[in-house]
C-alpha cells in the first residue's frame, strides 16, 4: 500500500514537472509572459530580428562609448555621397555587421569588410547590435547595463531602475496630483527658452508643413 502511494505521488510529480517544462518552453519561445497579448506589428519586426540573431557570435562587433555599430537589415548598395542619385560605392549583404562612422541627415557612413559608403537610416539596425536582438535577450542586456554600467546603444552609463510601465499599471494607476504640482514647478518662460536655444546656436527657420502622402 505504502509503495502504491509513493508510486502515485511520483507519477504526479513527474506530470507536474513536464507541465512546468512546457510552460517555460512556450514562454521562452515567445519571449513573453503568457498573459501578454501579441501584437501584429511587433511580430513582423520579430521575424527580422530572428534572422539577425542567427549571426555567429564571432562577427559581433564590440560596442565602445564613442563608436556605434550596427547591422544591415537587408542587402544595401552603399553610396559614394549621402544622396540618392550618388554613385554606388559598394554592396553589403543582409545582416552584415558595420561600424557607423558618421551621421548626416538621413544617412549613415558605414564601413564593413573593407568597404565604406553611405546607407539610409532605415537600412541599418543600430545600437545594441545583433546580440541584443536575439529573442528574449533584451532584458539580459538591460541587466548587463546595470552590472557593467554600460549601455550598448550609446555608451551611456546606466543603473538598474524601475521596470517599464505596462498598460495595466497605467489604467490602474492612482492619481498623484502632488507630482503634477512638483513638475509644474519646473516650467520655464519663453525668454528663458529663447536664451537657452541661442546659447546652442539654434536659428529659427520658416518651414512649411509636410503634406499627407497620397
Amino acid at each position, binding site marked *: 500500500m505504502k509503495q502504491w502511494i509513493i508510486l502515485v505521488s511520483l507519477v504526479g510529480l513527474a506530470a507536474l514537472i513536464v507541465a512546468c517544462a512546457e510552460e517555460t518552453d512556450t514562454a521562452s519561445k515567445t519571449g513573453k509572459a503568457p498573459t501578454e*497579448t501579441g501584437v501584429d*506589428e*511587433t*511580430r513582423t*519586426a*520579430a521575424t527580422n*530580428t530572428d534572422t539577425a540573431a542567427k549571426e555567429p557570435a564571432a562577427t559581433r562587433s564590440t560596442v565602445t562609448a564613442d563608436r556605434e555599430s550596427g547591422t544591415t537589415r537587408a542587402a544595401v548598395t552603399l553610396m559614394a555621397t549621402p544622396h*540618392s542619385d550618388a554613385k554606388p560605392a559598394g554592396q553589403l549583404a543582409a545582416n552584415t555587421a558595420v561600424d557607423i562612422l558618421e*551621421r548626416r*541627415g538621413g544617412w549613415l557612413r558605414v564601413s564593413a569588410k573593407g568597404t565604406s559608403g553611405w546607407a*539610409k*537610416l*532605415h537600412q*541599418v*539596425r*543600430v*545600437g*545594441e547590435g545583433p546580440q*541584443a536582438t536575439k*529573442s*528574449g535577450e*533584451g532584458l539580459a*542586456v538591460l541587466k548587463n547595463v546595470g552590472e557593467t554600467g554600460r*549601455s550598448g*546603444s*550609446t555608451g*551611456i*552609463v546606466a*543603473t538598474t*531602475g*524601475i*521596470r*517599464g*510601465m505596462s*498598460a495595466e*499599471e*497605467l*489604467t490602474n*494607476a492612482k*492619481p*498623484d*496630483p502632488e*507630482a*503634477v504640482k*512638483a*513638475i509644474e514647478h*519646473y*516650467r*520655464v518662460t*519663453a525668454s528663458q527658452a*529663447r536664451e*537657452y536655444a541661442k546659447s*546652442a546656436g*539654434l*536659428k*529659427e527657420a520658416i*518651414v512649411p*508643413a*509636410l503634406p499627407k*502622402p497620397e
Partner: protein
Amino acid sequence: MKIRIPVVLLLAAALCAPAAHALKLDDLNVDKLKEVKGKLKTLKEPSEADEIEIGKGVAANLLGAAPPVNDPQLQAYVNRVGQWVAMHTERPDLPWHFAVLDTDGVNAFATPGGYVFITRGMLLRMRDEAELAGVLAHEVSHVVEKHALKTMRKGKLAGLAGDTLSNYAEKKGKADFTKIVSAGTEIYARGLDKEDEFAADRAGVVIATRAGYDPYGLPSVLQTLASINPQDDAVALMFKTHPDSGKRLELVSNSMEGRFDKFIDNPRVRSRFSSIIKSHIASYKPVKTN
C-alpha cells in the same frame, strides 16, 4: 353631432400616424438613426481651460503610474528644450509642461492642454538634443492637433460616450469630468489613431526644424526604436500603442525626401545633452514607489 364624428376620426387618425411612423423606424436601424442624429447635433468644443483641466487630471494618473525623476537639473533641461520647441507651433501660449518619468520603459506621452512626458528609458537611448527635440515635437504636435480629444469623441473608449466631452464643455458636470479623465488615461494604454501618429511624425520633424535643430533627430530615434528587440519589456507598451517604428521611419523619410537638405547642417547639440545626461546618471537615485 354630425360634425363630431369626423373630429373623432381625425383624432384617431392623428394618433395612429405616430404609431405608423414608429413602425417604420423599427424597420430601419434605430441605432444608425441615433448615430446620424448625434452627428447632426452641434457638439460644443471644450474651451482651452477645460482642455487644461482634463489634461491635468490625466497627467496626475500618468504620474501615478510612473513618478517624475528626482533631478531638478534634468527636469529644467527638458523644459527649456520643450518650451522652445512648443514655441514653434500654432499654440505657443499654452502653459506647456515637460517632465522625465522614472521608468525604464521606452515611451513618451502628451496629455491635452500641454503636459508632455518622456521616460528615462527613452532619454537614455538618445544621442543628442536634436533627438530629444524631435520626440518632444512629435508629442507637442499631438497636443496642438488635439488628437487625444478627437479619440475621446469617437465613443470607443470604455465608459465614455461620444458626446460626453461636449456635455462636459456645456455643463461642467463632475461625473462627466471623472469619466473623461479615466477614459483619457486609457488612451495611453491603447494608443491613438495610426494616422495621427504618422501625422505627428511629419509635424514633429517640421516643428524641430523650425526651432533650428537638425531635422533628422526624430528619424534617428525611430531608427533606434526599430533596432530594439520587440520582445524587450521596455518597449512593450510603446510598440503596442504605436505603428511599427521601421514603417514610421520609412514614411517620414519619404515625406522629407529633398525638402530638408538645406537644414541638415543644423546643430544636433550633442555636448550639452551628453553633459546633462552624464551628470544625471552620476547622481541618479530611483524614486521610491509603494
